[in-house]
């Protein structure tokens, strides 16, 4: 069983509809500690990524990730633009110049995205950013089996995002609030956990269909 370009295109469709649906919730969360536009940026970026990926003809997984990176960045700017663009570029390197990859390798996409975000944003875990969902998800991925890794990544992302509630922001716009940032979950970590969840659901469904453990 392999992960194919049609699956990745469907994933971006899933990202776009989820972020569009959660747009106002994420904006309200951002309004508590930031400038209330996170949901807009994520929805706009993912819709642009989905459109760019759908417009590709015959292509590789890396082509899709690269197109998504460029489209997301140019639609959004902001801080999520460079962060997700870098994440997609790094994911593209793992996925490679091939039209499909073994399903068992797909958790490495989460690892690569987490590394890309850490590289671009220069944040450390614990600073109340999207990395607090991405880094635990990446760290939860071991040597398999696939479905155990995927379940662990999903759970780690969700608890990581929840844990940002008690953190004091140390980087980004909310950092200037200091103690006043405590008590509110980080919108970037929340949207990250949502995206990781969608990806994990998709991998789980594909694995289940083929009876891969």
């Amino acid at each position, binding site marked *: 069983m392999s992960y194919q370009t049609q699956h990745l295109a469907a994933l971006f469709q899933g990202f776009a509809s989820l972020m569009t649906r959660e747009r106002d919730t994420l904006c*309200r969360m951002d309004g508590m500690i*930031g*400038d*209330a536009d996170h949901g807009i940026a994520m929805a706009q970026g993912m819709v642009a990524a989905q459109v760019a990926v759908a417009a590709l003809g015959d292509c590789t997984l890396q082509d899709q990730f690269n197109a998504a990176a460029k489209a997301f960045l*140019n639609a959004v700017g*902001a801080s999520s633009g*460079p962060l997700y663009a870098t994440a997609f570029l790094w994911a593209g390197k793992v996925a490679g110049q091939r039209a499909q990859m073994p399903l068992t390798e797909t958790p490495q996409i989460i690892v690569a995205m987490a590394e890309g975000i850490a590289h671009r944003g220069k944040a450390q875990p614990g600073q109340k950013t999207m990395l607090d969902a991405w880094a635990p998800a990446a760290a939860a991925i071991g040597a398999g089996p696939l479905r155990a890794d995927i379940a662990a990544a999903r759970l780690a992302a969700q608890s990581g995002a929840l844990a940002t509630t008690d953190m004091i922001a140390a980087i980004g716009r909310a950092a*200037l609030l200091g103690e006043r940032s405590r008590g509110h979950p980080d919108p970037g970590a929340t949207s990250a956990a949502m995206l990781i969840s969608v990806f994990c659901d998709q991998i789980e469904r594909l694995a289940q269909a083929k009876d891969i453990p």
Partner: protein
Amino acid sequence: MTQTQKLINNGYDAVDEMLQGVMAAHAAHLLRPSPRAIVARHGPRPGKVALVIGGGSGHEPTFLGFVGRGLADAAAIGNVFASPPPQPIMDAAMAANGGAGVLFMYGNYAGDVMNFDMATEMLEMEGIEARTVLTTDDVASSPDRGRRRGVAGNVFIFKAAGAAADLGLPLDEVERLARHANARTYTMGVALSACSLPQTRRPNFDLPVGEMEIGMGIHGEKGIRRAALRPANEVVDEIMDRLLAEMQAMRGDRVAVLVNSLGSTPLMELYILNARIAERLQSSGLQTHLTLVGPYCTALEMTGASITLMHLDDSLQPLIDHPCDCAMFRQG
């Protein structure tokens, strides 16, 4: 919750429709080389350092209104309250480039830093040197000057750097003067009601009637504290105490003053604030060299105002006095 009232069409088209309207009004001053890049028609020229500013929309006349001869050569325009991506920053820099280097100036926000740094890397590949000076004038945002946000003081800081570039000074010197201007500029604001993004038309923070947020940022970021709204003179006193303490001026020193509306606060109230500001400056023995009053750096329709003091010296005063001719700001 009911949505706020705005004269817009589709919220997602707000920035592009605004730019269309800006070009229709100001084609004598401005060119639009790409959808989100604005360049001064008479600013850039060979041998001159290119001053490129930029940031999110929603702060008009910041940033695009300060593009013109004697001030910024170009601006990159982001979505509302969001940094522009690297491409329009590149487009603005390439259109303004006169072969003497590019100076990027923008407010200190994580998103802007990432996008402008990516543009700097792209320019390097084209063989164009770009440097960066971040503005950090919001004294309420952090005790640490280097971590502070850039807010309305941008107007004076960009003005000084733009004049230095217009005088033909080399990149090193324009950069040095820009840093000097930033280091001597202090701003603090107060918000009385929230703004709302065109895409959501929901207030982006809760501020109950009768309260104010001291030190509010220009995107609705929380400030120092909430308090009951007090008379204008008391609000001015709290802000001026803080600004004067930071500035540590000597009697007889000169200042430039900006009394800025965050969007909805009318000129009447700004001038009421300025009456008290002038008293406070006089009683501190400071000379007011220049006072600007009006909406210079807004946060959409936020109600509130900010006060900026630039501590002038012999290097900054001529730069502030230097003529400029922008679509929304003229001097000399």
